């Protein structure tokens, strides 16, 4: 599994690409694999403020919903508007065409506690040991 150098990572499996004060945000290769086929993406609108560690959107697979947490605080300046029509892009190209939003950061200090590619790779290995499997429906009524 690939974790590109130069990106920053969160424990909730988002990645951040920082260029000046602009942060591009998406979910990692590991996150998309865990979710399976992404069928729907819910994103904020341009101009909305997002707050570090709060959910700003959600990705859905057939049988699971995952909130996407903001790695940094700031204002949304661009949204990947191809995702609603082709959410599978997130499965196909999580770090490229599958990007979700661009944010103008309000505090560069927000980046301090994010992980490097190496740290994140280690974190994912830990997670894999703990996890087993797990989605699908229940059959109760």
């Amino acid at each position: 599994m690939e974790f590109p150098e130069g990106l920053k990572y969160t424990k909730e499996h988002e990645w951040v690409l920082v260029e000046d004060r602009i942060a591009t945000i998406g979910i990692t290769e590991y996150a998309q694999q865990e979710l399976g086929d992404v069928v729907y993406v819910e994103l904020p609108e341009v101009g909305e403020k997002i707050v570090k560690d709060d959910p700003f959107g959600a990705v859905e697979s057939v049988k699971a919903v995952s909130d996407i947490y903001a790695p940094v605080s700031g204002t949304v300046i661009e949204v990947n508007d191809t995702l609603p029509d082709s959410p599978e892009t997130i499965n196909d190209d999580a770090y490229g065409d599958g990007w979700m939003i661009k944010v103008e950061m309000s505090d560069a200090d927000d980046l301090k506690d994010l992980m490097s590619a190496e740290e994140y790779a280690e974190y994912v290995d830990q997670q894999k040991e703990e996890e087993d499997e797990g989605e699908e429906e229940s059959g109760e009524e």
Partner: protein
Amino acid sequence: MLRDDIPGFPELGELEVLRHFTRLSHLNYAIESQFYPLGSCTMKYNPKINEVVARLPGFSLLHPLAPAELIQGALELLHGLEAMLAEISGMDRVTLQPAAGAQGELTGLMVIRACLKERGNPRRKIIVPDTAHGTNPASSTLCGYDVVQIPSNNRGMVEAGKVEEVMDEEVAALMLTNPNTLGIFEKNIQAVADVVHKKGGMVYLDGANLNALMGIAKPGDMGVDVLHINLHKTFSTPHGGGGPGAGPVGVKGFLEDYLPVPRIAKSNGNFRLQEDLPKSVGRVRSFFGNFGILVRAYTYIISLGGDGLEETSRMALLNANYLRKKLEGAYHLPYPEPCMHECVFTDRLQHKEGVTTLDIAKRLLDYGFHPPTIYFPLVASGALMIEPTETESRETLDAFAEAMGAIAREAKENPALVKSAPHTTPVGRLDEARAARKPVLRWEPTKKAES
């Protein structure tokens, strides 16, 4: 104001319609054709006599707004069913109005809220264990409560200590399922109830698993204040491919005044409807609830009688424990506690070969069995939740255990076969991602792609 056509509506002969639906029926699995061991769903035999009785014109042709004097037989039935369900569950009063288990949950929580409000504070939170049915948190939200989830212990049970940690004066109720969704009896339930009661909260029992308890333990003796009962589970009314069911709610005496209206009262041998009860939560459904289902449940209860119901639960336990024993070894058993009416295995032993619970479930279809409930409860990763019910014979259970054993062997020797199952069904695994990405939710004459 008038339309001159219903565009797209069919125009067919009756025979064509019947052939179509008969053909569709052949594409279904059903209790009367296959063993259907869905955990938590209690897929028992649905006796034919229930259907005969429910179709009597004196029941099927009743109008709910006819004067009460002219539907005395129906009101007597409802009044009697309330009393029988109260006796079976150990509660004091029952309402039959909720149309389903989930609506029963909502009703029960409303009753709790109304009572607490009258005491001065409706409170803000409901505690739900991690093994709970998804309806518990969903109903809590709908009743205006926040959900606090607590973990069960490594034996699959709720501990009084864990409840104590989160229990405060803002918790309205704890929702519990007993036996829980792992099929394990919550032995500590009375201690847990004490913790909740001490802080002025109430205990709600999700009665989905009542089929394990008749004659064995009454929820009313466990410190439970409110419960719902799924008549389409324990009381044999058919599941119908997803309803209709019914979800009566039982309460302790101090909560009676808050039950939905109308209440059915008896005086001088006559039954009448009480609508004007100021403390009541109001109405949760139109009319009397799913009366046709209530007739079936009543029929079932008088057919079996008290001793028959007790035998029902005993045989449900026997079947579940027998199957559990037969499957031990072939499948991983995450919780070694004795089980009640259902047991939970996982795919851990098969996982090495890349075979998952979903694959095992699909392969079972090839063997002619409906799969167990899968991936629930969430605390047992890759869960296979098996509830055989009491109406299955030893021979059926043996055949199922054999199929499960064969699949466990296939998972080792020929995992690809299991992973590509089912091979014998009318359609193979369906592309659910495609269905969700570009939803096609109706047929359209022009068949144009929907946005």
